[in-house]
């Protein structure tokens, strides 16, 4: 029977992720920046059936309206856009950016209109968040009806504060944006996951930024992240389409491993074959 064969039914793997009022079925969230071409971006999204992608808000060019629009390369029928406030350095600017993004998405009738990836930066070199402004912006945006997905650092206390402020998801960085350094403090990430999910197991924690290659995404998921948001590692890979696929497999593998429950680490070995019935005595040394 197919059901008991190696091909797991999609149904059996169905593992929806609820973020605010949205439900995602794919746990890889991709950014739309930095691709060599819109075509390459579209191909990368197609190969993983991207369900949710982030997008930025910028000033319209006033003297060159001949430019192609990114929206022509996104499957808006089946893609939830997640507008961000990238490049904002204070709460006030982030609020304006979020409201303008919401207005555009409402006009497009995209389901992503009511949520926002909040990013309030504190340093243009590290692109680390300004957590004070991020917290302030979160409160204001929540008051304004937004579902806020908060980019933040990997500080468990700050993560807790943002959740308390009403963030629909807290999204700690694994390492600096675009750095490709991976999850530099897995211990902190694990604490964030445990703290935020205590008594609230479905609260979504998303690793946002820092992923360099597939194993980083898998590690994030193994540590209990609910999803991974990445951009540069795919867009700037030598073969973005292939890397997108690798990330998709990694996120799935990491998620399954987390659910499966890994074995405990131990200093010494544990033989996989029986200790009894050996055809010769083993040496006396330990």
């Amino acid at each position, binding site marked *: 029977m197919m059901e008991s064969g190696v091909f797991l039914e999609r149904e059996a793997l169905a593992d929806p992720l609820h973020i605010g009022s949205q439900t995602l079925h794919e746990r890889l969230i991709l950014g739309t920046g930095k691709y060599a071409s819109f075509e390459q971006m579209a191909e990368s999204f197609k190969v993983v059936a991207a369900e949710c992608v982030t997008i930025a808000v910028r000033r319209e060019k006033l003297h060159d309206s001949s430019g192609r629009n990114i929206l022509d390369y996104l499957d808006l029928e089946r893609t939830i856009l997640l507008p961000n406030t990238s490049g904002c350095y204070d709460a006030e600017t982030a609020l304006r950016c979020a409201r*303008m993004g919401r207005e555009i998405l409402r006009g497009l009738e995209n389901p992503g209109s009511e949520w926002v990836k909040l990013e309030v930066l504190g340093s243009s070199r590290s692109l680390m968040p300004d957590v004070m402004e991020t917290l302030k912006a979160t409160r204001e945006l929540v008051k304004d009806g937004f579902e806020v997905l908060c980019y933040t650092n990997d500080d468990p206390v700050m993560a807790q504060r943002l959740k308390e402020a009403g963030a629909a998801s807290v999204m700690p960085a694994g390492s600096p944006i675009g750095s490709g350094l991976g999850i530099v403090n897995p211990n902190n990430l694990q604490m964030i996951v445990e703290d935020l999910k205590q008594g609230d197991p479905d609260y979504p924690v998303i690793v946002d930024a820092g992923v360099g290659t597939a194993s980083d995404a898998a590690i994030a998921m193994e540590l209990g992240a609910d999803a991974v948001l990445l*951009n540069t590692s795919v867009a700037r890979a030598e073969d973005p389409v292939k890397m997108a696929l690798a990330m998709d497999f990694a996120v799935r593998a990491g998620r399954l491993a987390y659910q499966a429950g890994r074995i405990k680490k131990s200093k010494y070995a544990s033989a996989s074959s029986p200790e009894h019935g050996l055809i010769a005595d083993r040496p006396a040394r330990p």
Partner: protein
Amino acid sequence: MESSMRITVNGQDFAVPAGTTIAELLVQLDIAQTAVAVELNLEVQPKTAFTERTLHPDDRVEIVTLVGGG
């Protein structure tokens, strides 16, 4: 002669005829309404305001769209 006024659009100084609406400004700039949001003096304008709201001297207008980003 039609009088003109100065406004600021996306940080740039612009001269437009007095009484220009947001919708008319977009036409003048050859910008389609589909994927843009307009902010006027720090307040986001709903699409319904585009034809109703006339611009005043020294108004600060931001016209934004969606671009690739992470």
